[in-house]
């Protein structure tokens, strides 16, 4: 179980939720839903040591979601048996990333 990666996703989505706390659209709703999933995943599969995301406080919402998506996409799909919300999290993050990306414009 990628407990440390799950903890990273929890931190990233916690920050994305904080950054979008003053948005009241569907996009923020999806981020909050993804955060709800990752919070519970992190609680049920805790990491044995403290986890850190370098530069977390400087990340934008889009960067948080992109990093979280990368982490989630690296997980073995066979984990779906133990993480029933895995597919939903993947879909939500992919959709949020696409919507955020189109709303803020391509970087670089």
């Amino acid at each position, binding site marked *: 179980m990628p407990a440390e990666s799950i*903890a990273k996703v*929890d*931190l990233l989505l*916690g*920050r994305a*939720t*904080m950054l979008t*706390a*003053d948005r*009241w659209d*569907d996009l*923020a*709703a*999806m981020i*909050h*839903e993804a*955060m*709800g*999933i990752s*919070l*519970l995943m*992190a*609680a*049920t599969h*805790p*990491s*044995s*040591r*403290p*986890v*850190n995301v370098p530069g*977390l406080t400087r990340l934008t919402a889009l960067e948080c979601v992109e990093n979280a998506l990368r982490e989630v996409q690296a997980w073995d799909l066979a984990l779906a048996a133990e993480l029933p919300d895995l597919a939903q999290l993947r*879909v*939500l993050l*992919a*959709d949020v990333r*696409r*919507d955020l990306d189109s709303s803020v414009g391509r970087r670089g």
Partner: protein
Amino acid sequence: MWQAVRRELARLEWGVEPPLTLDLMADWTQTVSSLVTIRQAIGPISTADPIALLATATTGAARTAEVKPILAPSLGAVSAALADVGQDMASYPDLDRKRDAATLNHVAYELVHWVRVRTPDEQAKAWLLAGETALDGAIHAPTTRSAVGVGLAAWQGALAAVQPVQAAPIVRRSVALGHLALLRDTHALVEEAKRAGALPELYADALLGSIRELARAHQTTLSQIDCRRLGSTRGDQAVMLKLGTAVRILSGRPDHAEPSHVRLDALLRSSAGQAVLVANLTSEPSAQPAAARISRLSLEYLTNPRMLREVDLPKAPAPPAPVEPKAAAAREPRAAARIALMESTVSPGTVLDGPSILALCQARDLGVAAATGDPLNPPEILRGVDSSRWPQLVAEGRQAVTDLVGSVIPMVYAQTRRTPNAADTRGQMFVELMGAAHRFDPQRTSPEGWASYAWMTLKHARMRGVDEAGVVRKRTTGPRPSTVTLDGRDPASRTPGPGEVVEDRHAVAAITQALGQLPTSLREPLSASMQGHPLREIAEDLGYSESTAHRRIKEARELLKGELDARRHDSPWVPFDTGTDPVLRRAQRLFEQTPTLSRGPGIEGGMRR
């Protein structure tokens, strides 16, 4: 039966030189235990029941760190009178339960108010007000049980559980994140109600403004927390599990069977997920005024719940926005959540003829195809139909299903007459009926067969029945676990919750370890017995007599039980009766013992406020 309670309540109010207690909160906790006992004697109790919510609120109040012993008239005599009522109830099962439940709510309401006005601590007071409000709603504006109500009860339970460690950053983070999700849902529902004219505009605007302000306060809280060391201790994990489970229940996709006005009603009754308690836990000063306003607006709603009206759906939904199919799929459930109920256009009980049923089934199938089909590659049934008409077909399809159900609705009442849990069974039958209306195939029997099909569906649902929580029983012949309430778990589902999965994991590990410590002469027969081998086979394999094998297995079980009992103090969660949570308490102690500097600048910044 209630005379003694009435007498003691009067004495409490008018008593001259009453016996005093030095710890009102301890007295009150004992009294609430008696109230819960009575409620349990009346019937199955869900965590969303007002008495259960009062128990959770009392736990929260008792766990408030600042609450000091309060000198007040003792509740001992009232508590004793209530305990007698509880015993009487158990001895007379044929009493008027509905009447007793109402009486109990009134008594509890009066008592919690009495305790609240004598409690000087503001945080404990806020908790007691949460319990008082739940009872107030049950007495003055009763409502039916709702899935969101159950989720909100879990949320309140989680807040009470983390109260002893409220200063810990993990609590502030998890509470703020969870409440943001809850506020977002409330905001969406209020906006929708306002647009549909279901909520007075001024009221809705005031609520929306306060919600936004509280969300900004949570944003401030989150921006001040240093996340680097969070989540790795057992205490942190217990907090995350408790709050994470509640957040997941609330932030998951909305239950389609639950209309939006029911969800909004539950949220308003709970003061948008106990906004004041959340503000106390996050300790963010800017959260307090916004939370207080939400609380006031919620109380205003409670005095006049009719201000939230049900509004019909528009006849034809607006064409969908041009979004990619995947994004549309993700948003569809939220978009479908409207403040409305579709009404049947046929009178209840109308006997439909064959051609009418056939036409309804065709409209239904077209609607389903239009709702799920891809306009670029339309399904066979929609070939040649302009895709601009599809939304209309979806609406007509839904109406057809509603009409099919409407034609047989009296059957539900016929099937549930004189059945226990009639309201819950009825609710489940409506769900079953909707499913039947979707499944019915007129080609397989004949269109006229709809009524028989519906009747048989309902009959099967009635035979299976619902459990005490209103959940339909599974088609299983195995033993049904009884629904347990007030032990931190809601009976809405028998699927083990994440908390239970983790607890099970700990339990299995503890059993394995304890088993390994047994002497071989005891471990071997017990292991074989646990693997399901018959006694005779175990005795033969190990070279004992059957009676020796039996004695050794018994001895091993007793040793194992003693060992596991000794470890119980390490359990991550304890029920209300125990009054405290050792893991959380230990986490709080460790947190308090941590040298200030080692907590990091971010935390200190948050703590200093």
